[in-house]
């Protein structure tokens, strides 16, 4: 759902692993660095996690010789159900972002739902970029896109 102040993206995924195992992967630096903030051509070279409510994390991801800091604070830690943290990537995203992960047990594993909320200020910056007709975008948004979509 959209609130007045944020925009939201929701993705979900089913894993053939226990909720605990999936949950712990987000907070164990050795496991987290092997998936979180990685991508082809981007490696996490440093991962520090202070897994307490109010604790911080720092992931340094290196791509093309440039280091990108991913930083945030843990707001809620409720193993293995729910994890909420803030996320900033100062070089890339300027604004406040909050990520909520919910993990529910299902037969044979678990289902993870991730909701990313971003403060509106980010759009305001983007919207100042001028206005051009963009029919492709119109068609896409109008016919397929919903504000919060579960895969």
């Amino acid at each position: 759902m959209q609130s007045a102040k944020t925009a939201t993206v929701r993705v979900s995924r089913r894993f053939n692993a226990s909720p605990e195992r999936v949950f712990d992967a987000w907070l164990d630096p050795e496991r987290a660095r092997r998936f979180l903030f990685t991508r082809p051509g981007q490696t996490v070279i440093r991962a520090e996690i202070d897994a307490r409510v109010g604790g911080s994390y720092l992931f340094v991801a290196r791509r093309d010789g440039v280091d990108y800091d991913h930083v945030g604070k843990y707001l809620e830690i409720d193993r293995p159900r729910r994890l909420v943290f803030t996320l900033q990537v100062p070089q890339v995203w300027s604004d406040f972002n909050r990520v909520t992960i919910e993990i529910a047990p299902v037969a044979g594993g678990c289902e993870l739902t991730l909701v990313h909320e971003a403060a509106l200020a980010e759009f305001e910056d983007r919207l100042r970029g001028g206005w051009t007709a963009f029919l492709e975008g119109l068609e896409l948004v109008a016919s397929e896109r919903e504000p919060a979509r579960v895969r």
Partner: protein
Amino acid sequence: MVKSAARRKTPPARLDAVFHALADATRRSILRGVAERPKTVGEIARPYRVSLAAVSKHLKVLERADLIRREKRGSFQIVRLNAAPMRAAEEWIRRYERFWNRQLDALQDLLDREDSR
């Protein structure tokens, strides 16, 4: 004298207003219509079996989202598309969906690698 609403300085549209505006089929259809070319309110209303007042209500919602701009031409109002807010909404969603799906793909790979050990 031509009074241009587009030239007035308006605050940036809010993304939730954009999504609300796009959630209605009639409003999407109106947008596609004015995307082809700017139209008068009468031209916009013609294809729909609704009152001019109802169309005017839809136009207000679209205007709040900054998806259209109105210009006065004499006694007519010309309505134009303003695609920037929509484009920003679309880009934002796609960017973050891609980003998080990539993370979840990588998490799946990690779990698979651990399983095969």
